[in-house]
């Protein structure tokens, strides 16, 4: 080696691995607490959602317009509740100022009829992987996605393989970035490819991060079924490559902002 020899590396890294570690916490690191914290967060989110829903229903009794869902190549939406179209689209009551960062989570909850769902980017390293399912507002009004939807992993024949957890049971790690929901604006510019181009008309994408680890994913996983906004979407997807992940090591997070995710 010209500038760096093994002896220098050994010296440098030996110094690193002989550093004084911080004292360990005297209290158990996670006694039971994550269960309590998770329950507390979920209860808070549900309470907020309930309050907001009540407030919104009080303000806008039954003027919600719905449009039929637009299918994409990868999404086959089916609805357990049929949307009832109304003749006129209710305009937004007042103009709003788009914030400089992510859209605030205000407005009614998104309905399945206004959502487009597709498979987004996947990343993987060191035996861990993450795949994002992207939600775009294709309706005519802004809406909010909150909480964690019901997700099922299916095989090629549509049979249920498993239901991903919201925590990594092996370690107790909760893959959650707490948030109050994700605001979406209707995608007004047709023909603009989704991606890191906020000027192109994409505002307020949401993502559902699906994480998996160690050993890759079960190759039997052929699609992901997601219940959101009163409808069910089925996205064709295989998680991970190579060996594939075990269904019981797949876990999901609440909706996250994803404006810059392709």
């Amino acid at each position, binding site marked *: *080696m*010209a*500038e*760096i020899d*093994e002896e*220098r*590396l*050994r*010296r*440098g*890294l*030996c*110094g*690193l*691995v*002989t*550093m*004084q*570690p*911080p*004292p*360990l*916490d*005297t209290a*158990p*690191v*996670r006694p039971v607490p994550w269960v309590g914290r998770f329950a507390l967060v979920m209860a808070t989110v549900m309470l907020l959602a309930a309050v907001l829903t009540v407030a919104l229903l009080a303000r806008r009794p039954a003027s919600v317009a719905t449009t039929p869902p637009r299918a994409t190549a990868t999404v086959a939406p089916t609805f357990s509740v049929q949307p009832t179209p109304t003749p006129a689209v209710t305009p937004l009551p007042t103009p709003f100022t788009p914030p400089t960062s992510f859209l605030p989570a205000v407005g009614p909850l998104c309905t399945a009829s206004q959502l487009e769902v597709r498979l987004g980017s996947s990343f993987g*390293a*060191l*035996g*861990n992987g*993450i795949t994002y399912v992207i939600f775009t507002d294709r309706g005519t009004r802004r809406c909010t996605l909150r909480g964690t939807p019901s997700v099922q992993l299916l095989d090629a024949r549509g049979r249920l393989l498993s239901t991903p957890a919201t925590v*990594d049971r092996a*370690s107790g*790690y909760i*893959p959650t*970035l707490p948030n109050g929901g994700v605001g979406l604006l209707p995608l007004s510019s047709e023909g603009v490819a989704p991606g890191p181009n906020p000027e192109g008309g994409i505002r307020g994408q949401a993502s559902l*991060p699906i994480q998996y680890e*160690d050993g890759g994913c079960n190759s039997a996983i052929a699609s992901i079924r997601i219940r959101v906004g009163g409808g069910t979407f089925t996205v064709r997807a295989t998680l991970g490559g190579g060996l594939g992940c075990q269904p019981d090591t797949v876990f999901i997070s609440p909706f996250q*902002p994803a404006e*810059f995710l392709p």
Partner: protein
Amino acid sequence: MGQLNPSPPGKDDVEEAVARFGSEMYGLALAITANLHDAEDAYQTAWFDALRNWTRIRDVSKRRSWLASIAARSAIRVRRRHMLSSRLRVPFSEASALSSVMHWDAELGAAIGQLSARQRAVITLHYGHGFTLDEVAVILKLRGGTVRSHLARALASLRVHIGDDRG
């Protein structure tokens, strides 16, 4: 050092392991996360995980590599969480970066900080802990060839970064 979590494993046994392997586990977490705060988080979590499964490792001679494996996995998890947080613009303190931590060879620290987490894990386990490449492969659950490939790329990258700094 405070009392460790409860009774299942013998307290003396655990405290001896902390005293013996704590520095190595912390150093490995530091190398992988390349950040003081994340390393402390990973170190705490690694010990918690180790204590939960303490009775699984009956062969004491394998305890060192077992703990290294737990520390590596924990650091990788923390790093992944950090990467997700970075998307939300969580500020990153320069003072906690590897180049500052390795003040005895800041140039080398900065160059190591440029490597991928997996490359950092491989060179730390090999050169810092003294594990053979085959042992590193077992600890990181990688193939031997993959570990060798990471090592070669890490060394090449270090040469470039250190060469650039001097050039």
